[in-house]
């Protein structure tokens, strides 16, 4: 317990010191995607449900918060909140449909529903189709703190990330989280113990979608941009890869996975389609040889500590 507390403290120090070493813009991107991956991991890693449509929360929340900040002129925290609330709403409706099917069908249903949201975003007037919502103002936090400065913005993103991470930590270690894990391990058994499995799954789905929406909404404010890329199926695939690479069902895995993928995309960005080749190959290698992911592998070698 002490070792992991020391680890978290070290990571906190790292997050606080990071903008003095690295580029705040890059760090914000890592944190937004790390949050996205953590939210996704809540579902796949701790409930055993593979959603192939998480981009719908991320991307749609980005559009809503961008619209709220730019057109309605809301302050950033309200803009992010409105994006997040919309994601929760979508999560409730899509989750209600998706939990009716299990396993592989669940993945296909979420993918298809996400594609539907994607087409809605292509056609809806407020998303500006191919252009996306551009130059979204960061505005002033609570009407007081100007977020124009990248470092200030970074700390806001950091606080959001830490709060969401703490929430996920709390969820996983709560009795509710234990029920989710039991569903992951053996669904019929959880059912026979009297748990309303579908309702638990739905709640997990909504929580995961809401947090993914929080990530997308924050990203839209931090980067002033919400586009179709955020809501397309490739984005859903990316978050799966981040989680798989870092380690499904580990707390820190998705964070590490997101950091690696975002770094890789930064380096390969000029090479266009190479990104998708490398990502595809990473997927294949992870599934064939490396199913625990990096953090999972470390935890496994060192005996269950992390």
């Amino acid at each position, binding site marked *: 317990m002490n070792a992991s507390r020391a680890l978290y403290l070290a990571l906190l120090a790292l997050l606080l010191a990071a903008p003095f070493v690295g580029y705040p813009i890059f760090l914000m991107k890592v944190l937004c995607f790390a949050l996205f991956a953590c939210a996704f991991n809540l579902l796949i890693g701790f409930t055993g449900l593979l959603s192939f449509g998480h981009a719908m929360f991320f991307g749609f929340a980005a559009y809503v918060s961008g619209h709220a900040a730019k057109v309605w002129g809301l302050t950033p925290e309200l803009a992010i909140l409105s994006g997040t609330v919309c994601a929760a709403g979508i999560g409730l409706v899509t989750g209600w449909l998706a939990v009716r099917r299990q396993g592989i069908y669940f993945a296909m249903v979420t993918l298809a529903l996400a594609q539907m949201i994607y087409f809605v975003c292509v056609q809806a007037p407020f998303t500006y189709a191919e252009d996306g919502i551009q130059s979204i103002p960061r505005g002033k936090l609570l009407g007081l703190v100007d977020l124009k400065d990248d470092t200030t913005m970074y700390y806001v993103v950091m606080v959001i990330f830490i709060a969401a991470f703490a929430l996920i930590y709390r969820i996983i270690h709560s009795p509710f989280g234990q029920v989710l894990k039991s569903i992951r391990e053996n669904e019929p058994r959880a059912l026979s113990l009297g748990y309303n499995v579908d309702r638990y799954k739905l709640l997990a789905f909504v929580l995961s979608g809401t947090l993914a929406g929080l990530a997308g909404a924050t990203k839209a404010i931090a980067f002033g941009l919400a586009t179709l890329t955020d809501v397309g199926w490739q984005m859903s695939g990316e978050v799966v890869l981040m989680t798989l690479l870092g380690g499904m069902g580990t707390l820190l895995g998705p964070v590490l996975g997101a950091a690696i993928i975002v770094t890789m995309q930064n380096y390969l960005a000029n090479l266009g389609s190479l990104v998708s080749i490398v990502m595809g190959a990473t997927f294949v290698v992870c599934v064939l040889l490396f*199913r625990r992911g990096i953090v999972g592998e470390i935890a496994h070698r060192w005996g269950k500590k992390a």
Partner: protein
Amino acid sequence: MTEIFGIPTAALFGQLLLGLVNGSFYAILSLGLAVIFGMLNIVNFAHGALYMTGAFFAWMLLNYAGINYWYALILAPAAVGLIGVLIEKTMLRWLHQLDHLYGLLLTFGLALLLEGVFREFYGSSGMPYELPAVFRGAFDVGFMMLPKYRAWVVVVSLFLCLFTWYVIEKTKLGAYLRAGTENPNLVKAFGINVPLMVTLTYAFGVGLAGLAGVMAAPIYQVSPLMGSNIIIVVFAVVVIGGMGSILGSIITGIALGLIEGLTKVFYAEISSTVVFIIMAIVLMVRPAGLFGREK
């Protein structure tokens, strides 16, 4: 000009025909998915990418080697089938004992990989595939003009679907396959080479996708993105129909193609989402799918 509900009949039947063509492709692809799922318990996400690969092989054969459509119709699916053998033997085989989700993840990676490779070399804009001379022009069937090539695609697809259905449901080979789906160990005990059967099933399924790709090449532009565009719709088709029944996949695929064509005429705004909306309704009313049995 004659009209139905204020829509010129020519436009209506034109869209219905296009819907039928799309529906035929949905049917072939979802049929392949169903056959593969039955035998391997894997949802083949790479199905769309292999369909795209088939179209590209046809394009390459024509433009690099001057080999025409008719040979491509055999060579390209065979090549895609070989890729399938390779994928099954080197990768999917190792996932048999694991959760189904890993198969989906692996084939998703393969889809990204294939799409990336073709994008690297050919860019993401589409390339036209020249229609063979025999198929130029259209039949005049009285109430509309029927382009020859579209008629050909519909006829061939229907034949392929019924042929597959016949082989699986009515022949001895199909009986082995179905038995292998139910209980592979027992079938092995009868001296049947189940691993070989699994490999060939996968090769056959993706070969069908490759063939669909060749047929699609002259209608749509040959583009690296054509696979991912269609596979998600096909997944929705599979959710609607359920993967339990071969005939069910065929009927669902064609019906949804037609419905999509109709919406293009009457309410074009939702034509790209109508399949997903139907999926949502089916999930509400009949969660197991129209022809489905939960597995």
